[in-house]
Structures are given as C-alpha cells and as structure tokens.
C-alpha cells in the first residue's frame, strides 16, 4: 500500500476515475457533493452535473465555483426527482455516512439510469489486522475518526455490497478497486480477493 496517499489525494483519484467514465453531455447528479470538486471536474468535461449537500458551507463553496447545488438531506430521498431523469447518480465516499443506505441506493436507482457508489472497504486487510491485533475500532487514512465521533455509521465490505446487490436485483456493471495493495505472491493473488486487498472501491451499477 502506498503510504503517501493522503485523504484528499485519494478522493481525487476517485474523481478522475468517475469523470473519465462519464461521457460528455450526460446528466449527472452527485449526492453529498461536498465542496464541489468532482462537480467542477465533470462540468469542465462538458457534463451537465448538479449536486446535493447537507452542509451550508459546502453549498457556499459550490456556488463560488459556479455550480448548481441543492441544500438537502439525501436520507430524505430524492422526492421530486423523476424516474430515470439522470444518466448517472453518484454517491462518492458517502454511502457509509447515510442513515438509510438501502433506501438511498434504491432512490438512486430510481432516478438514475446508472449509479456510481464508492466507499472505503472495511474488509481491507489492514483494517482486519488492526481489529485483530489491536482489538480496537480500526482507524486509517480514509477512516481517521474515533469510534465516538465518526460520521461513518454504516461501514461495509465489498462482499457486503455484492450480497446487497444480489438481494436487491442490482446489476454490477463495473467494479474498480482503488488503492489496491500490490501483491507479488501468486498464492495470495489467487486465493485472496479484492475484499482483502482493496482499501476502496467504486461500483457502477444499474437496476436489473
């Protein structure tokens, strides 16, 4: 694992991957858009993107960038957004923060033709080892919080998401593991999965 990935740099990696995968002129909705960095990248590519965020200071930062943003709570759903009105709905690094992740994903699939969901993988080997050896709630660069002040209330692993997708008739179109540990050992490569080696994942999904 490359140690030099800072949190923001890691996020930017996601931003470029997602931006690269979306075609020009697409209609995109970014849930939990933060300060609008991803929206701006999408807009620069000629993509028609708008965002939703709960925080007023983030809304101000987005407005400064000339973006269209809506202050709202995505846990309240996407009421008022019609079915399949967006080509892509994005939930980047936000799933684990939502109160009702299942509801949010279903709302995304209702309003978007395709959806991007990215989250830190709690099955990552370092996290497993942290809990195993230290016996404490794991902390890392992308999970920097203490157990009592973390906003991450629904942490999950890649396998959890795959099971969830199967149960809910969600088709996984693509799975991109970012910040994946480099493995030389062939045995490990063969028998241990992304769920073990990837620190973060981006799924591109659609409704089956």
């Amino acid at each position, binding site marked *: 694992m490359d140690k030099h990935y800072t949190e923001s740099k890691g996020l930017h990696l996601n931003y470029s991957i997602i931006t690269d995968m979306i075609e020009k002129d697409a209609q995109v909705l970014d849930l939990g858009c933060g300060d609008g960095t991803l929206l701006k990248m999408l807009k620069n590519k000629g993509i028609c993107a708008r965002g939703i965020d709960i925080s007023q200071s983030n809304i101000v930062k987005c*407005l400064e960038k*000339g973006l269209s943003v809506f202050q709202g709570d995505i846990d309240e759903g996407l009421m008022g957004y019609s079915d399949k009105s967006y080509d892509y709905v994005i939930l980047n690094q936000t799933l684990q923060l939502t109160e009702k992740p299942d509801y949010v994903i279903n709302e995304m699939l209702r309003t978007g033709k395709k959806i991007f969901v990215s989250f830190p993988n709690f099955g990552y080997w370092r996290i497993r080892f942290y809990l195993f050896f230290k016996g404490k709630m794991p902390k890392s660069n992308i999970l920097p919080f203490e157990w009592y002040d973390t906003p991450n209330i629904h942490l999950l692993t890649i396998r959890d998401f795959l099971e969830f997708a199967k149960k809910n008739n969600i088709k996984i179109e693509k799975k991109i593991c970012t910040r994946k540990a480099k493995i030389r050992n062939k045995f490990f490569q063969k028998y241990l999965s992304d769920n073990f080696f990837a620190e973060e994942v981006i799924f591109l999904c659609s409704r089956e």
Partner: protein
Amino acid sequence: MITETKILKLNEKIVLQSGAELENVQIAYETYGKLNKNKDNAILLLHALTGDAHAAGYHKGDKKPGWWDDMVGKGKAFDTDKYFIICSNMLGGCSGTTGPNSINPKTGVEYGLSFPIFTIEDVVKVQKKLIDYFGIKKLCTAGGSMGGMQALEWAISYPEMVNRAIVIASTSRLSAQSIAFNAVGRNAILSDANFNNGNYYHAQKPEKGLAIARMIGHITYLCEEAMHEKFARRFQDNDSPHFTFDIDFEVESYLAHQGQAFVDRFDANSYLYITKAVDYFDLAKKFGSLENAFKNVLAKFLVISFTSDWLFPSEQSKELCRALMKNKKDVSYCEIQSPCGHDAFLLEFETQTKIIKSFLNDCGGNNG
C-alpha cells in the same frame, strides 16, 4: 451613502392583465453604483409587500437607512463597486409610483378604489419600462417574499433579459393559510368606520383598520421562537398586570407600535390592492403546472429559504427548485437556519451575503 428617490414619467399608457388601462404612470426609483459600458452589470431589487424604492443608503436628514441597507453597498452582497443596483416602488404602491393614492388624470381626484386591480405580472411590466429607460438588456433580479415572486415573474416574462434570479423566502403561490391572513387584514381595513369606500384622502383615514392589518402581518412575519426571544411573557411596565384592557404585555406594545408606525407611512388602499396581487399570484395555475411555467426561462436561479419561516415555508421553495430542475435549468437552493421567521430575509444578512456573493461571483459584473 446619501441617496434620493427619482421619478420616471411614462408617456405611453399601460395595459394591465385585466384589460384596464393606466395613463400618466410614474415610477419612483433609486439607483446605486454605476451602469457599465456594456450595460450588463445591473441588478434589479424587488421590494416586499410594504417596501419602497429606498433600498439602501440614507436620505438627507434621515436617521434610518433603506430597507435592505445591510445587503446593498460597497463590498456588501449587492456590491455597488461591481453592480448597478436599481430599486423601484411597485405599481400600486404609495411611495412615489402610481397607485390608488395618485390623482386620476381623467377625474382630477385620487383613484381610490377606482384604481384597476393589478397583478404581479403588471407590476413587472411597469418595472420593465424603467429597465428599458436605462437601455439595459441583461440583468439580475433579486427579491424577498413578494419581491421573490417578482424575480420569478421577471425570469418567466422576459427570459432573454434575465440571466440571474435570486428568490428569497418566496413562493410560486401562497398557501390558503397565507391568503387567509391577508384576507383578515383587508377585512380590518374595509370595516374601518373611516374607510368610506376608499375615499378617505381628504378626511380621517382608516387608521385602525390599517394598523390591525399590519399587526396581523407582523405576527406572520415572526414565529413562536422569535416572539419568545423578543418578548417572552414580559409585562410592559413594572412586572404586573394593569387589570385593564390597555396594553399589558410587551408583545402587545410591539404590535401597537408597528401598527401605528405603519399608518404614518402607508396607504390603506395600496394595502388592499397589493395583498390581492400577492394572493392572485399562482404560476402553476397560470401555466398549467409549475414545471410548465419555467419551460422557457434562461436565468440561473438561486433560491433561499429560512427554517423558521412558516409564512413562506421552505417546502414551497423546494417545490420551485424541483420544477426548475425537472426543466434541467440551472438552480441552486439554500436553506438558512434561522429563528427569525419570515422576517429573516431582512435580518439574516451575514449568511445571505455569503451565499449571494458566491452566487454572483462568476457573473463578472464590473464597471469596466
């Protein structure tokens, strides 16, 4: 900043939505900042129910500045270093623009109730004459409450002119509850013994009725929390009741003061007409649906609401945004945490300044 209200006299007659015609219409207005060479740095401010053209600065000798002085000026949300700011008194008002208290050129006496019923669309139509007078082809419209309705109406009526619209604590139509409050206000005026069918300009004015209308208004502009904060259950003097029907509580004294201050500056007939125009405003009804109303707008919208505003609740602002988004229009929405009720749009200037400044940030207005 010393400012003064100017008058523009229109030569042509104005045909209203109802078909009625008005002649010799005049518009009272103020401007702040400079119009640039390209004439593309204008912002038209639109006042609320009882506002006037005097949005900012001080009139000579006055102790109180204009109604939005916190927001308009050097370095403020509506920055006079960058923008040419215009504010006019609305049609039907009583602060310089033609209204029921103006002299009807045909009769030589005040219009009173013979003044035609007008709509928000008519109000905007008259403002357009002022904008044309300046030779402005592109502008930003901004207003709170009824001013927000006009900002919307502008973007719909003149889509090619409005490149930005800022709609604060407003709605595309009043709720039945809000119409009800307006109706009680009008009833108070209409049933005042001095009302005399609107012909009171040379006699005793219907002050009691107008004051009661204003008191009701002020209740709706605040909210429970704001009232508790301001007055709680405190008594006006001492800390004991008078055991009479005179003013006991601080909140009573506040309302009485607001009522009295209002009758000194506002015309009862204007109150009737303007509240009616606000009640009639209904974009969904006019265009079949709210979505349809925004079909042709080209402006970039900023919609702001306040959490404790129950007169123009956030939900109505969100409804606006959704209709715009369904049309794939550029719209941003911000809900400001505030305990001030509907009045927040006149009080919460720090947060609004941040939001409005960043919204206007990339529109490049300057004096260059």
